[in-house]
């Protein structure tokens, strides 16, 4: 009796013609050995397909490493420099710039009071007003 042999693998892979499939089916009904061999071959294939996939490094296969080139839009050099300059200006200005010349009402009223005392229009009211204007004497 001639057994199926390599035809079993082709049968499992669906590579047989319809005539060959009929002949394999008739043989398997009469041959216990070929049925057992078909079951073992099917079980082995199922076990192999259940294994996880492992990525083999290209170097292990003697292939060059791929070079990845991102697909991004190129910015203008001047725009980049302007943005950098603006950022630096903001930082420098915020760090170095004082908030102007700070004055209090007394900074202005006291010199006024001192200087007006030399004027012919110097009166008690002017002196009184100097300090009152700062709010220190205000009711």
């Amino acid at each position, binding site marked *: 009796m001639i057994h199926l042999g390599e035809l079993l693998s082709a049968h499992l892979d669906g590579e047989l013609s319809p005539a060959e499939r009929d002949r394999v089916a008739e043989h398997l009904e009469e041959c216990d050995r070929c049925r057992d061999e078909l079951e073992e071959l099917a079980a082995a294939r199922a076990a192999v397909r259940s294994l996880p996939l492992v990525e083999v490094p290209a170097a292990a296969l003697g292939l060059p490493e791929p070079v990845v080139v991102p697909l991004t839009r190129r910015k203008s050099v001047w725009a980049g420099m302007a943005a950098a300059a603006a950022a630096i*200006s903001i930082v*420098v*200005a915020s760090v*170095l*710039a*004082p*908030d*102007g*010349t*700070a*004055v*209090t*009402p007394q900074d*202005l*009223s*006291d*010199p*006024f*009071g*001192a*200087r*007006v*005392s*030399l*004027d*012919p*229009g*110097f*009166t*008690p*009211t*002017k*002196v*009184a*007003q*100097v*300090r*009152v*204007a*700062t*709010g*220190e*004497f*205000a*009711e």
Partner: protein
Amino acid sequence: MRKAPLLVVMVLLTPVITAADLSDYLERSTTAEFQGDQIVTCATPDGVRDAVLQIVGRDGSLVVTSPVGDGESLSAGYGSLAVAGPDGSVRATQVASATDGPGPDRYSIVETIPGVYLGRSAETVVVERDGEARARMTFDAETGALLRSIVFQAGQRVYCDARMVSFDPSAPGIVTSGAEPEVVHVLESTAEFDPRALPDEVEGFVRLDQYRYDDSSVLAYYSDGFFAFTLLHSRRPVRLETSEALTRVESGNGFYERIYGPGTSLYVWESRLGGLAMFGDLPPDLQDRVLAGLPEPDQPSIFIRWWRRIFG
């Protein structure tokens, strides 16, 4: 023959020309010795401002305290202003030099009214500038002290009324501690300033002196012999530090920030030439006219503001 009666009539109708002019009254009042209580009430565009003060005139100086203040007293005279705190500490501002002012030549006495004030013989004079009544002042006949001063704004409307409610010329008290000032701020004269920001004259007010305030600022003093103000110019923006509420007044391309006190006003603004601040005792309409003659408010671009803040 027909001119003689007419001449007599003209002589009779001519107002009595007083021997003393305004500068005589003011000079005498400065050297008067007295003590008294004064009430100041001012009707400003931002509301009423008033105060109660105790004043002592002695040796040509004036000492001012307030019964409702925090215990500070002021002593002013001969180019110096000293502030004595309740703890006895004293800080002073002194001018190193000063130019003689023009005197109140723009002001003329148009009426002299003898009378009685606080039971004392007194003289009241009405003062005009450029034909407009500006003040009505009552002087004590015996000492020459200024007993009451009414300042008018445009249209002879009362701006401020400062009046003595008690007056005693017999015993001017000593209210200063006599302590040496712990801090003395000397105003040194400088010739380095921007005449565009600090003009020689504005509305009859003459720039008499200019003093260095800091590395980027100059303080100028203006007077017309009667009213006066100081004008601060800085190449940088001027920022007013105060807890008082500021009034914002739109003008030109920018705005003024303003505070009124009893008889004084303080303006701060930014112009094309930098920051400016004005403090003085001008009536509101004179303030407006002076401000119109100074650099107007302007808001420079953000880059110019940065530049000024960094480089002055």
